[in-house]
């Protein structure tokens, strides 16, 4: 489990924009599962009874960032992950005081981009959201030009 937990070190997103706090399962070429407890970030996420749906999608995208690196290679200095495309179907609201669970699987993987599909569930196994995401590795470049 320690090795699985160390996969979080691949994630460049940090507090207060990190929406994954535990990797629970990784099967190479097949699957990643992770969880997020939103309670510590609740004051910054609108203070509503429900989590914003964009937080659920972003969390799934952050799982995709880890999975992309595991299935290709880790990010090197000068690179950053970028979302290319998201198609999400929302099934139910996520309570802002309950953990959520992500599950994501690769559909297609190239050298610097990948497509994943997955879903977000509540701790009592209610389907909250299903999504397909495209993630790319981009060069940071320079903003001096």
């Amino acid at each position, binding site marked *: 489990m320690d090795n699985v937990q160390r996969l979080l070190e691949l994630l*460049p*997103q*940090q*507090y*207060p*924009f*990190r929406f994954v706090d535990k990797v629970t399962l990784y099967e190479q070429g097949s699957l990643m599962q992770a969880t997020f407890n939103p309670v510590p970030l609740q*004051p*910054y*996420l*609108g*203070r*509503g009874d429900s989590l*914003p*749906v*964009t*937080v659920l*999608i*972003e969390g799934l*995208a952050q799982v995709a960032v880890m999975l992309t690196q595991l299935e290709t290679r880790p990010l090197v200095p000068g690179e*950053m992950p*970028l*979302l*290319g*495309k*998201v*198609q*999400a*179907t*929302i099934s139910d609201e996520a309570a802002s005081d309950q953990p959520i669970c992500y599950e994501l699987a690769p559909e297609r993987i190239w050298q610097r981009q990948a497509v994943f599909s997955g879903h977000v569930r509540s701790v009592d196994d209610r389907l909250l959201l299903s999504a397909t995401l495209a993630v790319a590795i*981009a060069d*940071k470049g320079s*903003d001096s030009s």
Partner: protein
Amino acid sequence: MRAEHILPYAKPWVMIDQIRELDCTEGTVSMKLISSSDFFLQGHFPAYSVYPGMLLVEGIRQTINCKLQHETDASKWKEHTIHSRFLQPVLPGDSVKYIVQRNQVDEHDAVFHGAGWVDEHKVIQVMIAYRKEGEENEANSRH
């Protein structure tokens, strides 16, 4: 019009600064100024700043929310589908102009098409479909 006076969210989860137009022919228009001091940029990323694409989607959601609050009980409308494409990174110093147009499918369903622009460059395009809460159940009970 200051968006924080309309939206039902507490700061810092206010992803638009200003509503410029609610009902013009262009649609609903809002603005967001991106700053290095934006709260969430602390973590995206610690050593360099790129405005998160998903917060651009949230900006468009909140622009739609302002439009719905203006004309009806916004809480009755629930989103069920979001499609988004991220076209260019947005950086501190950019001003994002969101333009959202509504295509009313029928009394119970509405589809919003939105885009974010930095100067003349489109940085994001989004489609969000909404359904009026309870309408489906009421429709089912009628059959």
